[in-house]
């Protein structure tokens, strides 16, 4: 399940469904699970992933050529949720593939497959709100994003609609570049905590053991995605899982 507030820092990692191939996804996920990853995003590849950096954009492009789709994601979820009950699987997608699939059907089938949460970066809170009763009934948590330039009123609104976790965008910009975890960032986190008791998942720019060390004690979840996908791309899923294992070992525990 999702961590509780102030739990030790956990890693959330990533699979792009179809990248490098559908078969490889299952092995990679098994590797991540074995490495100690407790949260995994299953990303439906999309032709226009505007909120992703180049690593994930290119992975999407490849994944689409290798059969990545909403249906493939649901099928994969079915299998991996059953096989790795200790891992919480989160559906990550842009809105259109879900919309085309039919949102209601999608929610039901995702929940039935064992998916626990949903991250949809181009789905604004206003459009999510009407679905909350349905999502709550299904136990499917919408994990919404707040960003450094989100106004306090809007943080309140977003955290109110979020379930499971709140996704904290660490800095301006898209996935895969460097960031900083100084005082400004801590003030930012503190501001968000004023509005919610949900655990915080910090994403965008988490790439090194140093990043994890910096985040430990400040957030409950670190989204370690682009860097992992680069390992997977360059070294294969097995080596990537080993690297993931090593880096998880470095996380300071309270």
């Amino acid at each position: 399940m999702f961590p509780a507030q102030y739990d030790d820092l956990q890693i959330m990692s990533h699979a792009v469904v179809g990248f490098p191939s559908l078969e490889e996804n299952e092995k990679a996920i098994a590797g991540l699970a074995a490495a100690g990853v407790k949260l995994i995003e299953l990303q439906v590849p999309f032709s226009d992933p505007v909120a992703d950096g180049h690593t994930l954009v290119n992975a999407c492009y490849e994944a689409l050529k290798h059969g990545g789709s909403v249906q493939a994601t649901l099928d994969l979820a079915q299998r991996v949720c059953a096989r790795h009950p200790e891992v919480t699987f989160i559906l990550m997608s842009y809105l259109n593939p879900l919309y085309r699939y039919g949102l209601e059907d999608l929610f039901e089938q995702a929940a039935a497959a064992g998916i626990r949460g949903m991250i949809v970066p181009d789905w604004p809170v206003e459009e999510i709100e009407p679905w909350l009763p349905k999502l709550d009934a299904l136990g499917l948590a919408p994990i919404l994003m707040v960003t450094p330039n989100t106004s306090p009123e809007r943080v309140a609104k977003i955290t109110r609609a979020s379930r499971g976790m709140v996704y904290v965008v660490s800095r301006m910009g898209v996935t895969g570049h460097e960031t900083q975890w100084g005082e400004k960032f801590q003030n930012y986190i503190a501001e968000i905590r004023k509005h919610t008791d949900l655990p915080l998942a910090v994403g965008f720019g988490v790439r090194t053991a140093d990043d994890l060390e910096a985040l430990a004690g400040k957030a409950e979840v670190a989204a370690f995605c682009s860097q992992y996908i680069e390992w997977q791309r360059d070294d294969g899923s097995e080596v990537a899982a080993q690297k993931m294992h090593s880096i998880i070992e470095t996380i300071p525990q309270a």
Partner: protein
Amino acid sequence: MIRSDNGYFGEFGGRFVPEILLPALTELEDLFFGLRDDPDFWEEYVTLCQEFSGRPTPLTPLRRLSKQLGGAQIWLKREDLNHSGAHKINNVLGQGLLVQRMGKQRVIAETGAGQHGLATAIMAARLGLEATIYMGAEDIERQYSNVFWMRQLGSNVVGVTTGAQTLKEALDEALRDWAASVETTHYVLGTACGPAPFPELVSYFQSIISDEIKEQSQRQMGRLPDEIVACVGGGSNAMGAFGAFLEDHEVALVGVEAGGLSLEDGKHSVRLSHNTGETGIAQGYKTLFLQNDDGQLGDTHSIAAGLDYVGVSPILAYLSQQGRVIPESATDDEVTEAFSLLMKTEGIIPALESAHGLAGGFKRAREMRPDQNVVINLSGRGDKDIFNIARAFPQREWTEFLQREAARSTELLAQKRGH
């Protein structure tokens, strides 16, 4: 001009963007909503268009061609005479005024064929702003002449190498830049698409076209035209030409999309008619997209690079759903024919985009009476893209010229290095 209902036009529109972009869109919307009913602001905009871009553009009667076709009187709204050679500059100049009010010092834009990028580069140079233009690497490869000009104008042109490396990816990449730079940077969206308030805002600035048509047709025809025809890429020139006439129900409004090679997937850019487009949500807004069953945006084709776009203005999607705008399409072949006909009969070189409007308009005019009037929006001139047009009309002399010119250019480079 049409107004959105909280960013929506019927079921289309909205603002589906990563949260990080929201403040900039709200800031822009607030600014725009505060200005759009201010006649002084409109006056400031009109003056800028006049003094820099030569507006009003004329409404040119095509006497010989109308006679030859034997139907309605055909008139061209001459957006080709704008500075930069197309209607795109109108919108960009308007957004320039907003940028100045926001106090931002940097603009970014996406561009396909390069026309909007060029317009943005021009505006940035004129206002002293830094500019970065995103353009698919594939598009750069084919449309290098526009890149040449953008760079000469001082803009930073960035090739986008993700995906199919065309307009769609350039737009995505511009959004990514914006997400990282939104506090200092304005994103100059180039057509009546994208997240609210862009469709409304771009249509507002472009409506200067139909304001002028209205006044000019009263003066030159003595009444309103029977039909107005415009090509539809993203929809900005069409919304510009239609805007002031939405309530004039006696004026038919016709949007002509790129019929391309055929209606097969990937061979056209027809989104409004023929049930080829389906409702979807991408690139920040909800509209009719060419897409597959999985919601992946589709491939498009048009002889006119500027019509080769996968989405369409949510306003046009709505108006065509309502029956107010009549969607038509023209194939590549019909377009080259209309292109030649206009050149040879009236001495005007249309952009290939605009030649879609011509093809559609000529076809309709033929079926009308000589006492009726059709206005076709000539959104741009063709001499800006001789390379595209030469591709559409392959000729030995041109090939040989390019070969010689490549050799000459190599030599000049060597001389320059020698210095």
